[in-house]
């Protein structure tokens, strides 16, 4: 049976509590991984591994490709980032590759250092929900 949104949220909360050592009550949909929950670079890989484990079933493995959840390659490609700002090409790629991230005001001020602040608990839940449906 497909997981409900509530089930997904509860499982994502478990993953973040284990990966980041945060309090369950702090894992609210609007909390950002970096700013509110204190995630550091290696934590993103930890989160990816834990999500895979949590949502994999014997029938259907849940495998997250590199850059599928967090767009790491954006940091180094010069056509996607210029003078610390994500280019129009970079923004288009973000929309295509990471639709689970709400860009909001980021489009008018696409400062690359602010990119990690866009990832919220809700982004993760949206990502998992969309991926489980496909």
């Amino acid at each position: 049976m497909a997981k409900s949104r509530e089930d997904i949220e509860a499982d994502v909360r478990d993953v973040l509590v284990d990966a980041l050592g945060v309090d369950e009550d702090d894992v609210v949909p609007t909390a950002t991984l970096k700013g509110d929950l204190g995630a550091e670079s290696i934590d993103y890989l930890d989160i990816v591994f834990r999500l895979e484990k949590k949502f994999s079933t014997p029938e259907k493995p849940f495998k997250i490709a590199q850059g599928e959840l967090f767009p790491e390659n954006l940091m180094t490609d010069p056509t996607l980032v210029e003078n610390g700002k994500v280019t129009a090409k970079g923004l288009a790629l973000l929309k295509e590759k990471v639709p689970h991230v709400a860009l909001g005001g980021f489009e008018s001020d696409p400062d690359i250092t602010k990119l990690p602040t866009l990832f919220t608990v809700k982004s993760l839940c949206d990502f998992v929900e969309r991926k489980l449906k496909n």
Partner: protein
Amino acid sequence: MRWMWIDKVIAFEPEKRLVAVKNVSLAEEHLHQHFAAEGRLPAAPVMPNSLILEGMAQTAGILVGSVHGFREKVVLAKVASATFERDVTPGETIRYDATIERMDDMGASTVGIVERWSFVDNAWAPVGRIELMFSHLDQNRAGTEFPEENFVFGENFRTLLEGAGLKKFVS
């Protein structure tokens, strides 16, 4: 050999599992301070859990490094969890049993079981469980340059691997 917290690799399943042992001896000077006699309390030499953790990091680190022939600079990036339920004292042997749980280009996560062999009880007993995350340094540079030489797997590790018959995995 400085800062080697495993004595020998005793089992190896490529890309899956590595088991190493360490004999804890009262000749190790740090045990004299951990814990020294104080007032009416007698000395209580106990292997520090932080060094048990280092032993597991070395065991699991060799396992992760072996997957790519020790070309990657494998560094401990995170102690995901570490729980200890029993002390290890001089005269006992520690066994580190590390398994790769997940690995990709960026790094790996490992699960490790720590046990001790007691010559009094003649049995292995659980000591703890340690989950670690390793990063492949060159895949996560973030603008930082590191030396080309592999400073993680230096001469000490090569000697250890030779003794365990793992040299053929070093490319």
